[in-house]
């Protein structure tokens, strides 16, 4: 195995006669033995370049995918202008054809393609050591057949022509389209030309379409399986045929048959042929093909191919079919130009390129395709997370495009329709995203459709920025799957996630209340729900964000929401989380609020909802004051439509209250101010809903005569607003009596 080398370019010179600084540096370092595993063989000068010949020692395993030797001799050609990455030539005569070489790969010497980066990017960190290390890495990985990491899409550098073709994903999979030795038509859907270089877009041709003669005609041919050698570069149909014939295919016969069919459609004669060849690869002769390599060529017009293959002659009177076909015409003159091949991606590819193992096919309903919603959905689409039904009733208006995933092309159309279509076009799966143009709260004729989708969903995502939608999903919408809400605070600087637990014990409406409580009690959320100062507002709800809001905030939060959605979808428990952007530094901090178990009392036609956290607070305040009584006012919210009263927090006993062993008189000093703060910090979502006080140990939880007086007093006051009030009595052994003060449910209480 003595290595035979081809002559490198140029004439031998001394190191001092080199002129390109990078060449001088490399030669100098090599001659000083300053670069590990590399040594200088020769310095040369050619017409336009300095040439350094060096031996590099390669890390090669015993068993090699490609025959890279432990020592390889290379010539590096530095062009005198230093305008392009140096050419690296493998001088060994029998250096193998491998991936990542410049074509033609059947030439000698082979030219290695070392860099994916552009040369200007490389120049910044170019050193001789870096360069030699890259050469050695190329040789090492090629020897192992690992030049391509699995997550690295293979970009063929097949075509020195610079033409590209983008193929449908189905053609990348052997099983999907086209049997061995069969050609199937591929539709050319678009061609873009830039400075003489073509990019050709294709799709699977459902059926031959008539109409204007297409300028290009594409065929995909699947060959018999080959062993895993690299494919040499054929320059003519004849050479391609010979390459395929070695494993039993007859490309010329296949093409001749096609040409005969085409001869019936004269309008295709001027179309140029695009030939796509899929070569299945297998490791050993008995095994099933493991991979396939796809190459594509731009050939002559159909008319000339027919002549070159002896199917017809062009005569002054038109086309004359040749019978019998002259077998010696084998397309020697039918020149082929290589196209570099790219495939459209599948959902699995999208998931993997996003760092996930596989696409997630759970059925997700996304309600709301506004600024945040559209961007969250597109983030999920790019990562193939979920098969979505997008429900939204709005059309995209011109001002929306400033913060919407869609652009001007969608203006005037329904957001849900365009968004689903754009999401589907990301991958080859055109059914992953579906839409319903409807208001989920008033779906009209689509009611049945909407409810059916909700019922069958695996996950319901509320992106509607509407409390009403959240309450509907929590309490009224069909289906048993978990609901997750994402919305921004009024300033748009914070993102809120309310995520129900898997069993839906803590639902969106209770999480919403707990979120309000945290909004005014939790220092970490200070200012979160305040009205933005000076901002123009058009909304009325705390989830309507300001019209003046940077897209950066929405984009950042949409990224977080898409990521968190994946986590929320698989979590067991409920979650309440807020992300806050620091305006000056753009730092994002996260605030986790513990979700609390909900408690419920039904009193007459009213339902009182509170939670374990409130119980704990009241219990604590009572214990502090024992043996005296204490109390305070209750904060919460009313849902009159659903006859529900939420009780979520308390403002404890004001300082001027009278607290004795069997007596409590709630004072009022500072109370209004505190209530005002609670309202301001919760965007008016928390309000006064009633009173509570404690009974000492040994005393019953039943309301005393005095308590009933309080109840009457409360009823009277609340009645002026048309609302009921709540009276709670806390006593020993953690018991709590709940009473609704209302003209309709007077004195009702739940004690057993």
């Amino acid at each position, binding site marked *: 195995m003595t290595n035979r080398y081809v002559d490198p370019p140029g004439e031998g010179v001394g190191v001092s006669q080199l002129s390109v600084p990078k060449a001088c540096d490399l030669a100098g370092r090599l001659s000083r033995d300053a670069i590990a595993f590399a040594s200088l063989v020769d310095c040369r000068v050619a017409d336009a370049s300095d040439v350094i010949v060096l031996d590099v*020692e390669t890390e090669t395993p*015993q*068993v090699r995918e490609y025959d890279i030797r432990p020592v390889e001799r290379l010539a590096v050609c530095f062009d005198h202008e230093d305008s392009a990455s140096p050419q690296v030539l493998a001088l060994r005569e029998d250096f193998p054809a491998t991936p990542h070489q410049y074509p033609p790969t059947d030439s000698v010497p082979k030219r290695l393609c070392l860099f994916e980066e552009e040369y200007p990017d490389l120049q910044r960190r170019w050193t001789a050591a870096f360069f030699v290390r890259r050469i050695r890495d190329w040789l090492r990985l090629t020897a*192992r057949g690992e030049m391509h990491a699995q997550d690295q899409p293979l970009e063929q550098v097949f075509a020195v022509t610079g033409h590209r073709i983008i193929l449908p994903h189905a053609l990348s999979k052997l099983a999907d389209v086209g049997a061995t030795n069969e050609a199937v038509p591929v539709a050319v859907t678009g061609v873009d030309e830039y400075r003489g270089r073509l990019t050709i877009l294709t799709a699977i041709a459902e059926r031959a379409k008539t109409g204007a003669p297409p300028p290009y005609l594409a065929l995909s041919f699947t060959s018999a399986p080959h062993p895993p050698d690299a494919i040499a570069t054929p320059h003519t149909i004849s050479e391609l045929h010979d390459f395929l014939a070695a494993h039993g295919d007859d490309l010329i016969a296949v093409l001749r048959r096609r040409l005969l069919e085409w001869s019936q459609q004269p309008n295709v004669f001027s179309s140029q042929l695009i030939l796509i060849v899929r070569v299945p690869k297998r490791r050993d002769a008995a095994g099933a093909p493991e991979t396939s390599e796809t190459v594509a060529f731009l050939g002559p017009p159909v008319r000339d191919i027919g002549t070159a293959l002896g199917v017809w002659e062009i005569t002054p009177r038109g086309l004359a079919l040749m019978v019998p076909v002259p077998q010696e015409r084998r397309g020697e003159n039918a020149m082929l130009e290589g196209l570099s091949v790219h495939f459209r991606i599948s959902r699995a590819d999208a998931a993997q390129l996003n760092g996930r193992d596989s696409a997630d096919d759970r059925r997700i309903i996304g309600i709301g395709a506004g600024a945040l919603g559209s961007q969250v959905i597109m983030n999920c689409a790019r990562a193939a997370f979920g098969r979505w039904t997008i429900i939204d009733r709005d059309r995209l208006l011109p001002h929306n495009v400033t913060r919407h995933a869609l652009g001007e092309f969608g203006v005037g159309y329904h957001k849900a329709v365009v968004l689903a279509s754009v999401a589907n076009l990301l991958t080859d799966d055109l059914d992953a995203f579906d839409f319903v143009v409807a208001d989920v709260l008033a779906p009209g004729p689509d009611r049945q459709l909407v409810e059916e989708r909700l019922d069958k969903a695996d996950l319901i995502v509320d992106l509607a920025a509407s409390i009403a939608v959240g309450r509907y999903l929590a309490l009224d919408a069909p289906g048993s799957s978990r609901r997750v809400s994402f919305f921004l605070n009024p300033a748009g600087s914070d993102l809120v996630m309310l995520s129900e637990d898997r069993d839906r014990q803590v639902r969106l409406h209770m999480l919403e209340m707990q979120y309000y409580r945290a909004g005014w009690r939790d220092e970490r959320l200070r200012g979160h729900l305040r009205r933005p100062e000076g901002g123009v507002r058009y909304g009325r709800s705390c989830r309507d964000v300001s019209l003046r809001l940077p897209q950066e905030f929405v984009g950042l939060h949409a990224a977080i929401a898409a990521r968190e959605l994946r986590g929320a979808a698989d979590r067991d428990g409920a979650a309440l989380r807020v992300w806050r952007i620091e305006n000056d530094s753009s730092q994002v901090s996260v605030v986790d609020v513990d979700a609390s178990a909900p408690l419920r009392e039904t009193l007459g036609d009213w339902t009182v909802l509170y939670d374990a956290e409130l119980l704990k607070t009241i219990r604590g305040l009572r214990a502090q004051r024992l043996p005296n009584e204490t109390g305070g006012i209750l904060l919460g919210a009313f849902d009159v439509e659903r006859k529900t009263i939420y009780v979520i927090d308390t403002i404890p006993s004001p300082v001027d209250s009278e607290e004795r062993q069997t007596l409590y008189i709630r004072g009022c000093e500072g109370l209004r101010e505190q209530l005002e703060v609670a309202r301001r910090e919760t965007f008016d979502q928390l309000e006064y809903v009633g009173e509570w006080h404690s009974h000492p140990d040994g005393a019953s939880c039943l309301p005393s005569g005095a308590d009933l007086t309080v109840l009457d007093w409360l009823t009277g006051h609340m009645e002026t607003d048309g609302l009921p009030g709540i009276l709670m009595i806390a006593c020993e052994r953690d018991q709590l009596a709940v009473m609704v003060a209302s003209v309709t449910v007077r004195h009702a209480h739940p004690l057993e």
Partner: protein
Amino acid sequence: MPIVTFFPLGNADCCRLDLAGGQKLLFDYANTRCADDPTDKRIDLEQELRSDLKAAKRDFYDVVAFTHLDTDHFCKATEFFELRHASKYQGKDRVKINTMWVPAAVIYEDRADLAEEGRVIQAEARYRLEKGDGIRVFSRPAALQAWLKSRGLTLDSRSHMITDAGQVVPGFSLPEHGVEFFVHSPFASRQDDGTFADRNTCSLVMQVVCEVLGRKTKVILPADTTHEVWTEIVGITRFHGRDERLEWDVFKLPHHCSYLVLGPDKGTDKTEPVEAVRWIFEEQGQLGAIVVSTSDPIPTSGDDDQPPHRQAANYYRDTRRENGTFLVTMEHPKPSAPEPLVITIDQRKATVKKRAIAASVAVTSVSAPRAGARS
């Protein structure tokens, strides 16, 4: 992924085998470096092994084999390892040996020329065998009977700690550990009168078979073994029809590239091997196989009595020129700065690592030199 590491120690041996499951086995320990001599290119073996153990969060080896009781196999071992037989060899910094492997002679042969450290290792081996814990002796079992009897022990009580030639060492298997150890020596040859003559009792010779993703890589690890012994080993192996037990992908040369491994005559420029040894090196080496000489750099001229012998090296170079590699520990990666010779084993069999370490990695892998105004 199993890793075989040879250390640049001059004419001395130490080979570490790291198994995929994290086990570490050491074949010999000879820390030959002269600490006072800044020009000594030999590696500080103790420091090298300690930093490896520290990275692996370990203070022990699963196995330490002393393949031959000559100084070039155990130099300073009694300063590095914890020995159970005397408290002066115990302390928290000492590295523990779970199981010690020794050839038979270490147990029953009292050599007058044995160096002091050799006596200590012999005492340790004998102590462990007497206690019946942490030892494996490679021997024909019956050959140990007299010694055991002299200590009041029966062969039966110790037979599970004895492995004869032609056997695979218990405790390691291809399915479970991805490795097996086949023993070639010490062995016994049958005499004309039907009795056995124990041969090469002072040297351990093994074939280590590693399997990764269904592909086997074979490493021959012999202690000092001459061509006469190899001829016998080849004869026995082929008699039993087990040629594959002498196949190899990595061959650690015995005795630092001595011509006596190949044949009786050194030759002028190249040693000619005897037939059995020729068969091993020219027919049993697999595609791309690697010969490792654990020795000083090969002299380019002259005729030193001491190995390495350039004539023997020429033979190995010639046989591997077409197919494989001949490497010398003190020449790898270059004679001016030898480094540990690391051979990784995977489904592509053996690969000699030749990684040039980036400066940022090198600098951040060690402490920076002392800096500051006060000196």
